[in-house]
């Protein structure tokens, strides 16, 4: 039995300890916001925050999550009440097909939370582990910069 927190809620997983975190999130907890892209740690689509830091959930066996905290895109906001980053991605056109978006949002969230810089180069470096094949990245970078400005104002 493996106990951990997901988006602030206590969760217990009773299945095989080598189940991948992404499968626990999607298939057991029905948190299907997290997407699987490559399944080999290259694309970043499955990024979630583990104790606040971005990790590829396709490379994390759930046994290593015991006693730790996981944040997924569902923790950022809801359709009725969007998070700042989610709103900025929508307004700036930071998503097209959408597969990379949850991972982009989580990596960007960690970057903003640790007070990361909002210039182009810093955002691109922070997001370097998240690949997008649609947008060309420009609108994603703008959305993160916009969210950084919005959060700065609060």
């Amino acid at each position, binding site marked *: 039995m493996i106990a951990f927190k997901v988006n602030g809620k206590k969760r217990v997983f009773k299945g095989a300890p080598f189940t991948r975190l992404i499968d626990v999130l999607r298939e057991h907890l029905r948190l299907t916001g997290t997407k699987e892209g490559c399944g080999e740690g290259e694309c970043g689509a499955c990024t979630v925050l583990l104790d606040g*830091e971005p990790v*590829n959930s396709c490379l994390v066996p759930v046994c290593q999550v015991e006693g730790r905290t996981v944040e997924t895109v569902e923790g950022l906001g809801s359709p009725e009440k969007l998070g700042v980053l989610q709103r900025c991605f929508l307004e700036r056109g930071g998503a097209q097909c959408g597969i990379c978006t949850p991972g982009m949002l989580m990596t960007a969230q960690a970057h903003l939370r640790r007070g990361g810089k909002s210039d182009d180069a810093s955002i691109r470096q922070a997001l370097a582990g998240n690949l997008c094949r649609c947008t060309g990245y420009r609108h994603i970078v703008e959305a993160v910069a916009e969210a950084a400005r919005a959060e700065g104002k609060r």
Partner: protein
Amino acid sequence: MRGDPGATTVLRPATPRQALDALRREPRALPLAGGTDLMVSWNAGLLGGRTVVDLSRLRSWAAIRSGRESVVVGALATHAALQESAVVRREFPLLVAACATIGAVQIQNRGTIGGNIANASPAGDTFPALAVYEPLIQAVSASGRRLIAFSEIFAGVKKTTLCPGELIESLELPFLRPKPSRQLFRKVGTRAAQAISKTVAAGLLWLDKKGTVAELRFALGSVAPTVRRLSAAERFLAGKRLDADSIAEACRLLEKDISPIDDIRSTRHYRLEVSKNLLRQFLEGR
């Protein structure tokens, strides 16, 4: 076809002693650290039926401890932790630079220095930096411990000289005194992040007051089955002035110590030329 989690036995030792006992009983079990390599193979279905010994509860093995003359880096220190360590940043900037080029933030947060070494990829990006810093590796097993020079740890592609049941506990990196006159870390890949190296270099150079070479250490990765120090060029330049002739000879001697191949990422010819350019630029001080 992905591995079946239900068919994988996971042992989760709470202490180093428990981990070593588990590996004594099952020397073929796979030690798991950050999983950034192991899970890729497992997801590809290559490790079915193997017992896994998850080392992540051995928190003391993640520590980075600074001493008077060296720093001891626990095998489970992540690439992110190494970049954040004040002593590592001050004393071993080439290792910090190397850690910053591994994958991207998601991989750096999970991958560990011990796992990186044990995995023994020919393209391991920390290896040239470690090769010039010359750490001692502390290896432990249920029957004892031993020190292994970094230059002795690799046996070939994906092979180390560790024995079955033996784990890397830590690396001791001696501080460089005097500090080098010049240093370099450079990774050449297709993209700044997530790319595997075509060639990767680390160099340290000490010049004496007259401008002659007191010591050169130069290492290259991705251009041989294991990381290589350029022993022939290093020996040749010791005591010499760096001028056009001596630098040209050092670049010629580089071929004695590396054996690049054509593969999916690059060609033998490209790797050789770029490696020579990196050495030449470093020696010219550009």
